[in-house]
């Protein structure tokens, strides 16, 4: 949309003409990607690097304000009539006008599996602004270690691409753990970069091929000068839990971590009774997060990522004791807006739903 058109459509007069609907509701008649405020995009290219993944290039509308390297965003798609949003790391460098993400098949992850199986050119995707602080500063460290496992390669790739785009790769070691060569996303690109850039050394470990999991000996062998390196780490929870103490024991330079979905410490269990004030329904708080308790009670609260990122499920809790499922911290709240998906009851809770 041209800025002057957007300014006109965003004016109070045009808003009044559309009222009580929004200008977006009418723009959707032309193209559902059009919006005055919401970032939305269309898939402009689909590539399948491995059998179990898909790499999407998304052309965002002009409400996309860009990102910093290593950040993530929510991708929303309508599946069987229902809007689902999940979080993915951005691989493209910040200067790139297109957004690149790579999605791996993921157990019962509906959005991931749908995109892997059915993503196609032209598909509409709802976007969120970029979030996250897995970002290198403007200055690139002289020596860095990028270390990832599985789909954890995506944000780390984003960081590396940013450095390469700015021609600042002096001494970077990239250690990546993948199950096998056929399973590894960005394998070809990494190999090519490794050959082209003298400042970059790529070490790939195939765990299914006898390469072994991360341990002290392997880390010392591959990165003997870890003490002098600033580290970016991303991977599945088990990998992160194993890698983090090893790295911290060897280097007191900054360690940046990006943790994916499994931010919950354990299966969500609550205790006490949950009262949904507006609908006058009482439920046991035992089964899952407050969001799951509400859904179990037949309510349909708004939700998005279901992992504490998007704030779509934010709801006023009039009073009660809640546990943050990411940190296990228990606290008393009163008239507080909470993300229902990452809080469970830790006593009686009154939710304004």
């Amino acid at each position: 949309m041209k800025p002057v058109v957007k300014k006109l459509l965003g004016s109070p007069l045009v808003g009044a003409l559309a009222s009580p609907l929004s200008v977006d509701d009418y723009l959707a008649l032309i193209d559902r990607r059009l919006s005055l405020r919401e970032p939305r995009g269309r898939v402009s290219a689909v590539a399948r690097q491995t059998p179990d993944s898909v790499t999407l290039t998304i052309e965002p509308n002009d409400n996309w304000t860009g990102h910093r390297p290593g950040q993530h965003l929510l991708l929303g798609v309508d599946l069987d009539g229902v809007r689902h949003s999940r979080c993915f790391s951005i691989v493209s460098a910040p200067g790139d006008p297109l957004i690149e993400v790579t999605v791996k098949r993921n157990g019962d992850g509906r959005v991931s599996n749908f995109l892997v199986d059915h993503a196609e050119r032209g598909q509409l995707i709802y976007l969120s602004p970029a979030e996250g602080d897995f970002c290198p500063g403007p200055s690139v460290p002289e020596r860095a270690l990028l270390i990832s496992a599985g789909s954890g390669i995506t944000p780390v790739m984003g960081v590396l691409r940013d450095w390469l785009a700015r021609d600042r790769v002096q001494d970077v070691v990239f250690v990546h753990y993948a199950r096998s060569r056929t399973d590894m996303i960005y394998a070809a690109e990494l190999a090519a970069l490794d050959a082209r850039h003298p400042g970059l050394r790529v070490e790939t470990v195939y765990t299914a091929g006898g390469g072994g999991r991360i341990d002290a000996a392997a880390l010392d062998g591959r990165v003997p000068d870890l003490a002098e390196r600033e580290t970016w780490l991303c991977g599945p929870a088990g990998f992160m839990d194993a890698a983090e103490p090893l790295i911290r024991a060897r280097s007191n330079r900054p360690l940046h971590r990006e943790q994916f979905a499994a931010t919950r410490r354990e299966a969500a269990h609550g205790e006490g009774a949950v009262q949904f004030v507006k609908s006058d329904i009482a439920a046991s708080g035992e089964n899952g997060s407050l969001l799951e308790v509400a859904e179990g009670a037949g309510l349909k609260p708004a939700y998005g990522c279901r992992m504490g990122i998007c704030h779509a499920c934010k709801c006023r809790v009039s009073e009660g004791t809640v546990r943050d499922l990411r940190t296990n911290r228990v606290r008393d709240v009163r008239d507080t807006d909470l993300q229902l998906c990452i809080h469970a009851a830790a006593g009686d809770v009154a939710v304004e739903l």
Partner: protein
Amino acid sequence: MGKPTHLSEADIAEFGRELDAVRDEVMNDLGERDARYIHNILATQRYSEVVGRAMLMAGFLPPAWLGGVGLLSLSKILENMEIGHNVMHGQWDWMNDPALDSGTYEWDNTCPSDQWKHSHNYVHHTFTNIVDLDRDLGYSVLRMSEDQAWEPRFLVQPGIALTLAAFFQWGVALHDLEWERIGKDKSWSEVGVQARGIWGKVRNQLFKDYVAFPLLAGPMAPFVISGNFAANFNRNIWSFMIIFCGHFTDEVEMFDVEETRDEARGQWYLRQLLGSSNLDGSVPFHILSGHLSYQIEHHLFPDMPSHRYREIAPRVQAICERYGLNYNTGPLSKQFGGVVKRILRMSLPHRRKGNTLADESSVDAPVYAEAA
């Protein structure tokens, strides 16, 4: 008046379970097909509005004016009946689409959505056809049941009904002020807050139809103003007719507070069934009525996506037949005829059929739990 006596409590409970099963089956089946339906309706409503308003800009040509009024009326009727009313019931919340969220949707009507959700979703759908509790029973200006005490003012109610039909959205806008409670158990400050909400909405609605679009039309402004007025008028008459046919037809039952105390699920279903009446018609007719032509199904399952009422109606009717319950349906002419008859009959002092109702003083005052 009231509930049938030929069913035992166990029968009524079983009746409720059968209806629950119908509901569960549909609600578990919602998906792509339903999403496509509502998206088609949304597109139809918006296209007809855009084209209709554009035609009114050429309103000096009589066919353009008539076509514009027709399309804008269609748009306003679809928006109020099939979209707004149903979205605010939460029928489309399962889609998780912020544009169809019952919590935030605002409809093209002078009544603010939050007040509508209180007066309609809560008061009317909870206390359906309970005299003194359901404020939609005559909208506190008409006498629609023998059990409402007659007052001389009801002599002119045929005229009042006609006025209400023509300006229905304004009646709806003022409805939740609950003027009969003001100064009693409702404070003036509470009324003030509501009145400000109504004024905010009214101002936007009037500005759009009678200032902004006429300004845009320049010399065509008179045609745009008259066309917008005509479309609002048509929508008012249509929604009045459909809504009055929902609960005030000939055979519809009214209830008293006593017999509805501590209702179980099955009994609640029973009251919704007996207090509602359907309209027969074609698919386009049902869509234009917002599927309120399936008032019975709507009152049984207010949050079920409306186009599903059409599909489950034969099953609901079959269940009613098995339990020997009246499934009140008929063409618009017959049902609206019943409404007109009722409005006329109730305007005159009329004795109750059998004096079963307890002395008024023993009937508890309406209890308005706060649902907002």
